[in-house]
């Protein structure tokens, strides 16, 4: 059994660099433990002296106990410093200090000689002292003195055994005199005691050694673990460097190749050459796609992708997918249908697009007749939506349905589909899904088709007031006969002209408003309300924030809506004065305030003033009126 334990422990031999460190730690621990034993040893010594005072010659006892002091001195020459207070006291008296932490192994070995010597002499003191006392002791004491000596030996074992050389020496010197003395006595009782002492000696040695081995192995294991961790860290750093290099440098020649091929295409006329260059272009395109896929996978694996969570209208994503795959599907004579939806989800737009794109791409790739359907439907209690990609392809056998997500796995294919890709599309989809916290599932029947689906949470920050800004583009400032719609080659309207004025009642359309209030809910509510009327809104919770936001926009605000009391002691009036000074003089102002100061505030200011709580209609009315007045006068 010992052998098997040893074998298990031997697995963790640490490398040479750590070996010296381990030795240092071992010796230091032994020394520290030894230090701990000083007071108990003194105490026990004094008790023994008191106990044997009447039987053993007093002078001997006194010599015996005073021998303790030089040993203590010798010990401290080699031991580490007990505490910082003693350290200061020692440096005050210019004693040498042993700094175990920063010393080299050789130096430490030198110090150990001192305290090993001290310990050995101490053991000698016990052993010889005990043997000597036996001659003078009373019968009862004679029985007990061996136990005391053995006891001291055992007590030290647990602490000193950490440093085996000192330990062996100590125990031998401790036990030997008493064993010899008892053995030579010729008395049956004493022989029994001798035998017991021998057994105790053997037991202590074995136990001590095992303890030491255990301790050593702990240290070795720790060292090995640290080594592995360092290796892993180096590997991660290497991977990051690779990613950075690949993203930047490796990509460039591939990219340049695409540019050159494009340039070449524009220059050639001869049809055979055109065909050839077309083939080159296709190859380059494949290469680019595969390279980008690999890079995406590396980034996902390395955790180098930052998720940018926002509200994503599914219709935008579907539109992109349609643009990308409609022609490919048509070329393969497949039916690519999309069931449109007006749901908005909460996800990262790029990653979401990638996942769905990979599903659709697979669907098209592995379908020879029929088609692919992209759809979304609400599930659960309306909190989630499931985006599904159905295809009428070959299907995936049951036992492979989890494996298809493994890296570089492609289904065995007797039909030799040309563009099979690298087999990492689904891996990327899976990793991206995990990163986003969504879930994906696959259903498939051989010969019938498959369905890959992704569960995405619906965005819960649906505006209370729908944003209608689509109508506030320049195209809507068209009133009157000056409209000029120039249709372009692909049917997109150019800038229509404007000339007429928008209706007087809705000046908020297209207006640029600053809203300042230290209450976040008030700010949010006002913002949503104004945005639903078509305004551009910037907000701040205090004067400095408001000024900072203003600095980001070159356009002057058309209207300032602010609370009278702002955080930081400034009033809304101070802020307004500052804006008038620094930005533009005549921006209309609307002050909103709570009830407590209403009356006194009303007298102080001559801006338009509203009292909280303000109803939506009142706010809009007041804002419109101000903007109207300002527009007419300017």
């Amino acid at each position, binding site marked *: 059994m010992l052998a098997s334990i040893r074998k298990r422990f031997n697995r963790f031999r640490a490398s040479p660099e750590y070996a010296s460190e381990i030795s240092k730690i071992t010796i230091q621990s032994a020394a520290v433990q030894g230090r701990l034993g000083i007071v108990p040893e003194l105490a026990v010594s004094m008790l023994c002296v008191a106990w044997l005072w009447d039987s053993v010659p007093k002078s001997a006892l006194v010599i015996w106990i005073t021998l303790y002091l030089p040993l203590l001195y010798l010990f401290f020459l080699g031991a580490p410093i007990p505490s910082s207070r003693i350290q200061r006291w020692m440096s005050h008296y210019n004693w040498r200090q042993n700094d175990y932490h920063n010393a080299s192994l050789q130096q430490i070995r030198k110090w150990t000689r001192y305290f090993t010597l001290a310990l050995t002499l101490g053991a000698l003191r016990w052993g010889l002292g005990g043997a000597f006392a036996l001659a003078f002791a009373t019968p009862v004491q004679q029985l007990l003195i061996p136990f005391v000596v053995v006891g001291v030996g055992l007590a030290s074992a647990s602490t000193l055994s950490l440093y085996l050389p000192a330990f062996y020496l100590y125990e031998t010197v401790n036990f030997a005199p008493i064993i010899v003395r008892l053995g030579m006595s010729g008395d049956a009782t004493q022989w029994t005691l001798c035998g017991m002492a021998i057994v105790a000696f053997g037991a202590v040695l074995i136990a001590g050694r095992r303890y030491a081995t255990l301790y050593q192995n702990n240290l070795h294991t720790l060292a090995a673990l640290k080594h592995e961790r360092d290796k892993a860290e180096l590997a991660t750093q290497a991977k990051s460097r690779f990613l950075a290099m690949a993203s930047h440098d490796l990509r460039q020649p591939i990219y340049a190749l*695409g540019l*050159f091929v494009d340039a070449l295409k524009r220059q050639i006329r001869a049809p055979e050459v055109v065909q050839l260059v077309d083939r080159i272009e296709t190859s380059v395109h494949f290469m680019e796609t595969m390279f980008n896929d690999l890079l995406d996978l590396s980034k996902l694996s390395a955790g180098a992708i930052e998720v940018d969570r926002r509200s994503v209208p599914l219709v935008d994503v579907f539109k992109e997918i349609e643009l990308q795959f409609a022609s490919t599907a048509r070329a393969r004579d497949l039916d690519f249908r999309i069931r449109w939806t007006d749901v908005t989800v909460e996800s990262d737009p790029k990653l979401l697009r990638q996942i769905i794109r990979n599903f659709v791409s697979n669907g098209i790739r592995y379908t020879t007749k029929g088609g692919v359907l992209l759809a979304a439907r609400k599930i659960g209690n309306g909190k989630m939506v499931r985006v599904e990609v159905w295809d009428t392809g070959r299907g995936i056998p049951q036992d492979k349905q989890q494996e298809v997500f493994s890296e570089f796995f492609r289904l065995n294919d007797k039909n030799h589909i040309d563009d099979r890709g690298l087999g990492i599309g689904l891996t990327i989809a899976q990793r991206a899904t995990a990163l986003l916290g969504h879930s994906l599932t696959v259903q498939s029947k051989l010969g019938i088709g498959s369905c890959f689906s992704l569960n995405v949470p619906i965005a819960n920050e649906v505006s209370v007031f729908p944003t209608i800004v689509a109508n506030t583009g320049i195209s809507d400032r068209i009133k009157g006969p000056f409209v000029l719609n120039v249709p372009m080659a692909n049917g997109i309207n150019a800038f229509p002209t404007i000339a007429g004025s928008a209706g007087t009642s809705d000046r908020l359309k297209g207006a640029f408003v600053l809203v300042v209030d230290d209450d976040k809910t008030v700010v949010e509510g006002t913002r949503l309300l104004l945005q639903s009327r078509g305004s551009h809104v910037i907000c701040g919770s205090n004067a400095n924030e408001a000024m900072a936001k203003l600095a980001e926009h070159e356009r002057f605000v058309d209207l300032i809506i602010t609370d009278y009391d702002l955080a930081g002691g400034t009033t809304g009036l101070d802020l307004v004065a500052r804006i008038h000074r620094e930005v533009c003089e005549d921006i209309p102002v609307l002050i909103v305030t709570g009830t407590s100061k209403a009356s006194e505030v009303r007298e102080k200011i001559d801006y338009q003033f509203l009292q909280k709580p303000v109803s939506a209609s009142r706010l809009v009315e007041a804002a419109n009126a101000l903007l109207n007045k300002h527009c007419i006068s300017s």
Partner: protein
Amino acid sequence: MRILLVDDHEVVSEGIALLLKQIDSCVSVFCAKNYSKCLAWLAREQCDLILFDLGLPDCVGIEALKELKALHGMIPVVVLSGQDNLETIHAALSCGAMGFVPKTSSSAIMFSALQRVLAGGVYVPSETMQTLPSKISEYPNTAKSEHQGTIACLPVAATELGLTDRQFDVLKLLIKGLPNKLISRQLDISEATVKAHVSGVLRVLNVTSRTQAVFLLSQKGVLLSEA
């Protein structure tokens, strides 16, 4: 037209230079491999447009762009970059870039984008506009045309936009990325007047900042004609 192309990868520079020549054979393209060479060249020579890569080895892209605009505000800068995330594009435009062409675009899109840039228009990838929190995302987008590889580019005059001539001049310079000081110097008006005009222009276009104006013009495929 003289173009300075700043990119540390020679192969890519050559490819882009080739495309530029194909779009307009009268163009002269000069290449600089890093930021210090770019500054050194600009100290000696003139150019009409800078194509600037954000991934240069000897500088931090956006900081360098700011510095470049501060030193040579009159020259429009279009950013090329391998990173096409929203923050980078926004940052580049806020620093005064006149456009952003991601290196990840297909060569067809790169061609159209450069075509537009050479004609004096702005280009911003349409993908980012869909994720913009501002109202611009609600405009009818031109995604269709982009995927077919052609982005229409229509020259437009002041009246069509509803701007006065003065405002139109200010807009042209604003889009080019000139700071207010240089605009005032160029048009010989006070800086306060420039600010007021800028505000007025943005109001007419129904946007609130220069960055949004750039996005809008790119999306509409508008070219501010040199009438």
